């Protein structure tokens, strides 16, 4: 990478952020908004700085991340397993296909009232919700990726003496891995959104709870700081998955 490119990669994103901050500050000035409606970027930055020194804030992040990772893990594993099954076996496709097609359009948020009813504000409810949000994306991407694996590779598997499960794992799943990894990236984004949404409605701790509490005490600055943290964590998680998947696939 040349020096020019390095400079571009540093400077251009800053320009994007500056535009957003400019519009933000400009809106406050133009409409003469009160801090309680929309605090200035500087105030939010200040709040964010204070939050970083607050152990409760880190606890909330930890809770949210825990729910997210557990849910993602369960959803991904289950989704990949079902996706392989549906992609490889026609009978499984016929049994599960319609159910999956129907259920994947019931968005996770529609389940929140039920999960609150069933699991209360516990960790389990959030994990179930995240897993639900993730699982359908994983099933559909996995099954689709497996259906497009070069058929010669399967015939070669049979020729080489592989058993059906070996062909499913060593050929189907491995050949579909890059597509599955990008599916996981998309699924993680939806999973993270589901965590926060679930916490908004029924939870005892987590980033969503922190934000709703701040909102009720009219601490708008903390609300916005929390939203920024959600955005940053989501972006970092998505980036991490991309890096891990890339490193593993191109070992």
């Amino acid at each position, binding site marked *: 990478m040349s020096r020019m490119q390095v400079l571009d990669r540093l400077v251009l994103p800053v320009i994007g952020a500056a535009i957003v901050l400019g519009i933000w500050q400009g809106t406050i000035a133009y409409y003469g908004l009160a801090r309680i409606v929309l605090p200035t970027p500087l105030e939010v930055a200040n709040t964010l700085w204070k939050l970083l020194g607050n152990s409760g804030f880190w606890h909330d992040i930890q809770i949210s991340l825990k729910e997210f990772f557990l849910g993602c893990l369960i959803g991904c594993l289950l989704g990949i397993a079902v996706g392989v099954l549906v992609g490889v076996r026609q009978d499984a496709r016929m049994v599960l296909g319609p159910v999956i097609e129907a259920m994947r359009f019931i968005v996770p948020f529609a389940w929140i009232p039920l999960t609150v009813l069933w699991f209360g504000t516990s960790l389990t409810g959030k994990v179930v919700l995240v897993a639900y949000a993730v699982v359908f994306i994983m099933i559909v991407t996995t099954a689709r990726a497996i259906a497009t694996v070069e058929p*010669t*590779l399967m*015939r*070669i598997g*049979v*020729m*080489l*003496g592989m058993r059906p499960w070996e062909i499913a794992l060593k050929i189907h799943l*491995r*050949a579909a891995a890059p597509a599955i990894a990008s599916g996981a990236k998309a699924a993680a984004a939806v999973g993270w959104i589901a965590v926060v949404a679930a916490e908004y409605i029924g939870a005892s701790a987590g980033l969503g709870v922190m934000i709703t509490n701040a909102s009720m005490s009219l601490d708008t600055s903390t609300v916005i700081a929390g939203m920024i943290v959600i955005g940053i964590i989501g972006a970092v998680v998505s980036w991490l998955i991309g890096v891990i998947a890339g490193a593993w696939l191109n070992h």
Partner: protein
Amino acid sequence: MSSISPKTDETTSPQEARAHSSGLAFEEISHAYVAANGTTPVLRNVSFAVESGQVACVVGPSGCGKSTLLSLAAGLMEPTSGLTRWKGRSVKPGTNPDLGMAFQQPGLFPWLTIRKNVAIGLTTRGMARHEAAKQADEMLETVGLSGFGDAYPRQLSGGMAQRVGIARALALRPKLLLMDEPFASVDAFTRLKLQAEFKSLLKLDKPTVLFVTHDVSEAILLGDMIVVMSPRPASVQKIIPIAREDRDRAGPGYARKMTEALQCLGVETNLSGN
């Protein structure tokens, strides 16, 4: 029902084929593909036998079901009717430990190194990893690719990838070698080279070979017999035995066999302007 399989010195009737317990035999094979919009018959009453250690080249119009024949021999599918026998036993879907197969596309696993691509069949069949790697390296050397063991398939040219596909099949030391137009997708010069290499490789283990090609000259060069198929639904039109002297491209035998096969395929051979 009476067999319509052609009678030459090299062929046998289905009843006799059963007695050949050493090679590959197709016995009154018919096959149709069933799809939602109807059935497509591809093979009709195909019978012929390849004796152990012999090379049979199957030629025929494109789409006539040559590859189907290979898939049946490989146990990748079952015929609608009829029987495929290998060493006297009927071929069932599933794994045949005697089998090695190469395809029109090299079909290498893009995530494995060349060495691992060749070794994977050996490890699948239970060989220790380091021993398989060693044998893979030896086979790569035999096909002229020593030093490429650590490369990945995307770094290879088409002809090189095709060689790896063949090396993978040969590394299994197959007693039954099935080749589905393995040289069709490489350039003419590489093809000539690969044909010559392949010919000498066959001398190592003397496998029974079923070699599908659309190139009659390739069939004469490599085969002990040429099985000429009719258009779809294909049956055996003629079986042409090839003797050693017929492979001399400048000799009379080569021209005679060439003409015989091409006429059988319905190709006009007299292009000399007479």
